[in-house]
């Protein structure tokens, strides 16, 4: 059946951001450390794409590379193209300093984890909104009207929050205020790097459900980076699984959760403590993730993979379209479900 599928690669019909062969390297004394290795992925207009990876898998680098925000001395190579709704595609890695400033915030904006460190502690929240509007030559009165609307969309009391300093708000409130701030210049795309990681479970889920509403209301495209697969599974349309600086599998949330074709994804699904699964079905992943300065040749997962053959250790696996809109980077994708048994149906019904 797989043979009949056209090998389409990462292309999709209406992308907002296309990343092609994007790598980020750090030049170390003896050898280069590759923290993002040849990643190609589309962010499609109007979708929520969840990027899932363990810590140190390069998931933040992917978001940073998408807005050319990798810090020195990191070197970003490859192509990142932004496709505005109307107008010509923009080569993001080629933008000048001023163009980048405009591109960030007005077209693509980013929310980091830990809102407290994103806000200036000596300026009230109103100041942040006004400063951002002024710096981008927006009408402040009109902008503040939008700010109040955004804050109340996020279940915040605008008057109270605007007059507060970041430290006077709880973690969940300041994180929501930060999301409102990131949307003040009406960007098309929101990149979110673990935006809920430091928060309580209840606040995480509440923010996620607010995000789903806000995305509809403001016509956003969201890239949501997290280490927490179950958290994003219900929110995201598609999921991209990163392992050790390279993409392992990309597919819709259903395909990944129900029918993953990559041994790492399956092992990850198995390893996640889950409320519904019988506790016996949870198994840890053997071994540890590689260091960026010593990534294995061939498939990065090969040293931990139960399916690894000689081929896996020597060559990088090609992308295979395993079904419509679902691709896996594995030589043995068709054996993955047998080697790493994981049946969500069984697990959920138990």
């Amino acid at each position: 059946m797989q043979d009949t599928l056209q090998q389409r690669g990462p292309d999709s019909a209406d992308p907002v951001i296309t990343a092609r062969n994007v790598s980020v390297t750090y030049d170390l004394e003896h050898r280069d450390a590759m923290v993002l290795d040849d990643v190609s992925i589309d962010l499609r207009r109007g979708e929520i794409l969840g990027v899932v990876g363990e810590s140190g898998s390069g998931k933040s680098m992917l978001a940073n590379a998408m807005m050319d925000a990798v810090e020195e001395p990191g070197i970003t190579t490859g192509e990142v193209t932004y496709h505005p709704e109307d107008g010509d595609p923009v080569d993001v890695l080629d933008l000048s300093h001023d163009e980048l400033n405009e591109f960030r915030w007005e077209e693509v904006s980013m929310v980091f984890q830990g809102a407290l460190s994103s806000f200036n502690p000596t300026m009230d929240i109103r100041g942040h909104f006004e400063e951002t509007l002024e710096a981008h030559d927006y009408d402040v009165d009109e902008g503040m009207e939008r700010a109040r609307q955004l804050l109340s969309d996020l279940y915040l009391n605008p008057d109270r929050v605007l007059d507060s300093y970041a430290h006077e708000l709880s973690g969940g409130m300041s994180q929501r205020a930060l999301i409102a701030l990131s949307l003040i210049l009406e960007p098309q795309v929101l990149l979110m790097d673990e935006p809920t990681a430091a928060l309580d479970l209840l606040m995480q889920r509440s923010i996620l459900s607010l995000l789903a509403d806000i995305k509809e209301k403001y016509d956003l495209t969201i890239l949501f980076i997290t280490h927490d697969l179950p958290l994003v599974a219900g929110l995201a349309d598609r999921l991209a699984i990163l392992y050790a600086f390279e993409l392992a599998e990309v597919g819709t949330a259903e395909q990944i959760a129900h029918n993953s074709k990559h041994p790492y994804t399956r092992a990850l699904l198995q390893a996640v403590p889950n409320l519904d699964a019988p506790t016996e079905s949870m198994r840890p992943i053997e071994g540890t993730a590689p260091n960026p300065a010593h990534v294995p040749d061939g498939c990065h997962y090969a040293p931990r993979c139960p399916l690894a053959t000689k081929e896996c250790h020597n060559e990088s696996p090609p992308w295979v379209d395993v079904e419509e809109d679902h691709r896996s980077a594995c030589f043995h994708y068709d054996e993955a479900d047998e080697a790493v048994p994981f049946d969500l149906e069984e697990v959920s019904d138990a």
Partner: protein
Amino acid sequence: MSDRATPAANSWDDEDDDIVMSLEDVSVHFEKEQGIVESMFDEPETVQAVSDVSIDIPENDVLALVGESGCGKTTLGKTIIGVQRPTEGTVSYRGQDVWDARDGRGDVQIEHDDIRKALQMIHQDPGAALNPNRKVLTTLEAPLKKWDPDMSTEDRRARIFALLDRVGMEPPEDYAHRFPHQLSGGEQQRIALVRALLMNPDVILADEAVSALDVSLRVETMDLLLELQEQFNTSFVFISHNLSNARYLAKEAGGRIGIMYLGEIVEIGPPEEVLNDPQHPYSKVLRWATADLDPTAQKMTDPPVRSIDIPDPVNPPSGCRFHTRCPEAREVCKTESPELGEDAASPGGGRCAACFRTDPDHEYWDSEPLDGVDDAESPVLED
């Protein structure tokens, strides 16, 4: 209440002696710091971190405490292992009041030093819990040198190596001579665990001990805790904000889950009962907040609370503390506080919830619903 708290129970060979730690009506209050001018005019604000909690920890048991940050779960955990002095109530170790032993009050049956040794803790961030300038071996030798100064170097090392080997760090000689930064997060946490185990403790407080670890390491680390529990007969008080982790550990060990809200335990019992059939509305809310792996089963519904922000613990709401957010709150909840019941403290007490809704004859059912209660959605729960 049972006789375990009366002075008569303060003896070694009491029939209840498999209860290691016993807390009775414990409250912990913190006073907020004041400026000098403020302190002349105002009473200091007090935060009620823990209010009126009674709980028993038997040998070889797991108690998982779950709640939002600021609910007092860490303070309660520290009180259980005798690190935090309670403002009210008593904490006893095998019948001996811990703080009487500490202060040398009354007839001390068990020395405070022995109690201290028997109650250990592992912290959330293993990187911060280990001295970065010391080798693993030096870190691990320190407690043995302090408590057993006569032990020979060979014996000490043999003991440390055996334990390192036991937690899967092979070869132990190699790991013992590393610095903490040369270990992964999971390995650092295992060192912290070995340090606690060297004292042969009765109870270990694991405060968010797996939260900082990678997803793929969490199950592994919890499995290790369970294995060690069986082997060393240690009880764990496991603090987590994550229901899935708490369930895993409590279920595998046959222990209990306690749900905390603003300093109170609102529901406690075996994990399957508390999680599959929560009685307290707050437990239901936490259940809603825990993501399901299956995207199709997981709908993005609005939060089933009337306010998503937690109230200020300085002025906790009157009556039932959850009534300001509770989707089921009625007038009576504003004035009267529901009790958890007397059975809740003991491990055999089954499931208990502090909510009027568990009592079909309570006046709650004739009381007027509060504003917004009708509008709030009920949590979506698939059984």
